[in-house]
């Protein structure tokens, strides 16, 4: 691809970088997650690095989910994007930035299986996870943290009073006296309320799971069985991934896949892939609709069909420019 094309199609990354640099509220956890994932991809380099240990895939009904950080990195390193589903602990009430688990497309799961790079994790409910021990450990850690924080809070309060004393005008001796008395009383009377305590949420643990009630709820809305066109989609997915493209689902554009020339974090999609079998009859109005949509969003519509000799043929639809 020409360098000028690369530059013009690359997403502005300065916005993301600047939010990483700024402290406090601006640090977006999900962006950190995504950058960590794509950094893993750059380090591992070419696709020959399948020697990495297998990725653990948890099945929720038939939806393949990836929970652990190292697994997410491994999945991304193989060029598979997936879709994050979970909410972030610090920013739960939004849908712009999501966290783990990562939902794999059926084609992505199929590709991992084919490369023997994935293994189903055992069903959580059956194993003894030592829930009681975990809880006890958590409570002990919380207590320790509370004690540390009380000490620090007391020191903070003393410093604040001292600052108030030295900052006060020299004339107001009575105010000074009152402050000194408060300082002396602080050691006895100070209590650090439980509600003011800062709680640390450890999200990097490997043992993430959902409780049985949530699992039952999710089962009720499990995805439907295999669609008749699923094989065509898989062939197309495998072929395009083999050519180095990154693919995500294209529900927003009425197609099957969105095809990116590189990592979706860095590029806009070039193609909307619509997978049909060679003999499948498509209404011409549908072809026109998807082609028009593609030209409106500056993407080429690709009609993809797996051919008889395990090759896939592609037809690009573009606006003719003839009004």
């Amino acid at each position, binding site marked *: 691809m020409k360098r000028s094309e690369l530059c013009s199609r690359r997403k502005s990354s*300065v916005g993301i970088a600047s939010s990483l640099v700024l402290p406090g509220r601006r640090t977006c956890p999900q962006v950190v997650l995504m950058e960590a994932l794509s950094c893993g991809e750059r380090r591992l380099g070419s696709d020959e690095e399948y020697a990495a240990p297998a990725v653990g895939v948890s099945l929720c009904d038939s939806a393949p989910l990836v929970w652990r950080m190292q697994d997410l990195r491994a999945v991304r390193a193989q060029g598979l994007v997936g879709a994050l589903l979970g909410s972030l602990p610090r920013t739960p009430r939004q849908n712009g930035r999501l966290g783990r688990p990562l939902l794999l497309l059926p084609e992505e799961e199929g590709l991992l299986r084919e490369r023997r790079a994935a293994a189903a994790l055992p069903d959580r409910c059956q194993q003894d996870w030592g829930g009681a021990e975990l809880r006890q450990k958590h409570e002990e850690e919380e207590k320790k943290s509370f004690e540390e924080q009380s000490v620090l809070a007391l020191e903070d309060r003393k410093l604040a009073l001292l600052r108030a004393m030295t900052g006060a005008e020299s004339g107001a001796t009575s105010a000074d006296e009152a402050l000194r008395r408060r300082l002396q009383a602080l050691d006895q009377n100070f209590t650090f309320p439980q509600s003011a305590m800062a709680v640390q949420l450890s999200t990097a643990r490997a043992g993430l799971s959902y409780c049985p009630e949530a699992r039952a709820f999710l089962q009720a809305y499990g995805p439907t069985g295999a669609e008749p066109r699923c094989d065509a989609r898989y062939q197309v997915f495998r072929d395009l991934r083999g050519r180095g493209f990154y693919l995500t689902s294209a529900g927003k554009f009425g197609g099957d896949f969105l095809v990116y020339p590189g990592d979706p974090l860095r590029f806009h999609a070039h193609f909307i892939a619509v997978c049909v079998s060679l003999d499948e009859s498509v209404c011409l109005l549908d072809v*026109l609709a998807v082609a028009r949509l593609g030209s409106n969003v500056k993407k080429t519509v690709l*009609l993809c069909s797996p051919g008889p000799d395990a090759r896939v043929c*592609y037809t690009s639809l573009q606006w003719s420019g003839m009004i």
Partner: protein
Amino acid sequence: MSGASGGEKRPPPNWILQHPAYQQMKDLQIEDSAQVHAAFLVYMDLTEVRRWKEVSCVKSSELQVVLLEAREKEGAPTLTILPLPAHQSVTHKSIRHVLDRGFPVLLCAVAADSTLVYQRMTDGLVTPDPPVGPFQDMGRRQHRKRRQQR
């Protein structure tokens, strides 16, 4: 047409049926008359409206349709045009047949009101044109906008 006073007036002959180009297409013996009609409308558009050069009609025996071949202007490459009524269906296989002829293909959908829509079809993956600059990095402006909205 308004009726004349008195007896019935014979309707004028259908000019399409008498047009030499239409008769040429008829001679190709395609059963789908709707497709032949669509092909004729595209022919008229290319020759009279857009004034393309060397417009000719060809039969595709695998698909049993009339195809048109034309050049946009002198010296331009030949294109194959596939005219189809808009309500019909098409398979990827038939599109590949037309592409196999070796020329760039234009699919033309003909609606019931004779509106014509042309789509270019090419084999392989054609990268779309990049968006036109100049580009301005949104950067913090989006953050600021969102905070103000809150």
